[in-house]
């Protein structure tokens, strides 16, 4: 029997990425959707750059990350999500470098058979990513550049 037409081979490295360039949400969703024809629900979280932080105006952001450890942390989060939730595929993507207000920063895409599991895992992934991934944000404000160290 041949593989279902919709199932495509995706390099695992594409499912956990830190990259400077912007991403296409459609393409990333397609990557997850293409992993299995069993997927019946896909939950996404998209984090974007806002123009206000702690009552200061923000004109742009710069993200720094720890090369190697950040990727390892994202791989661990993906593995744990796949193990601990009833989900089929998980994609974690974070940008670094300079990011303009309104632009995409971070994307989580979770595919599951059913929506409840997709929502739960997606929520857990973004919370975990923010808590333990060695990524630092510098906000450019009228008062100068500020490294953000406390954010919900």
């Amino acid at each position, binding site marked *: 029997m041949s593989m279902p037409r919709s199932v495509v081979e995706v390099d695992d490295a594409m499912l956990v990425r830190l990259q400077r360039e912007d991403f296409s949400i459609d393409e990333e969703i397609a990557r997850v959707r293409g992993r299995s024809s069993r997927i019946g629900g896909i939950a996404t979280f998209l984090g974007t750059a806002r123009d206000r932080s702690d009552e200061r105006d923000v004109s742009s952001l710069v993200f720094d990350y720890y090369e190697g450890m950040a990727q390892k942390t994202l791989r661990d989060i993906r593995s744990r999500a796949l193990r601990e939730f009833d989900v089929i595929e998980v994609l974690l993507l974070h940008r670094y470098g300079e990011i303009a207000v309104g632009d995409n920063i971070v994307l989580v895409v979770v595919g599951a058979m059913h929506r409840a599991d997709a929502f739960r895992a997606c929520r857990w992934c973004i919370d975990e990513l*923010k*808590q*333990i991934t*060695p*990524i*630092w944000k*510098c906000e450019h404000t009228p008062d100068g550049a500020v490294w953000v*160290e406390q*954010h919900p």
Partner: protein
Amino acid sequence: MTVTVKLFGAMKAQLGNVSELNVRLERGHRVRDLIEAIRATHPGVGALLRDKNVLVSVNHDIAHEDTELAHIDEIALLPPFSGGARALRRSHVHAPVRR
């Protein structure tokens, strides 16, 4: 023994965007000895270590004060992550939470 320590975020900015420190460990070879040595040789970074909840990683894993260091280890000082690591932030570098 001399070790190289990577710096990020506010700690890197503190040293004028220097991203690595070479630190000579005269006495012990544990994380706590590294912290002592940094306080002695780089007071600016030492002050940040005291004031912020900085974690130390060794070979991409969060270390604790008793973790032994080798010359070849990849060591980094990790200021609080921008995403808000509340559980981790509660612990100072002297007693980081083990994940």
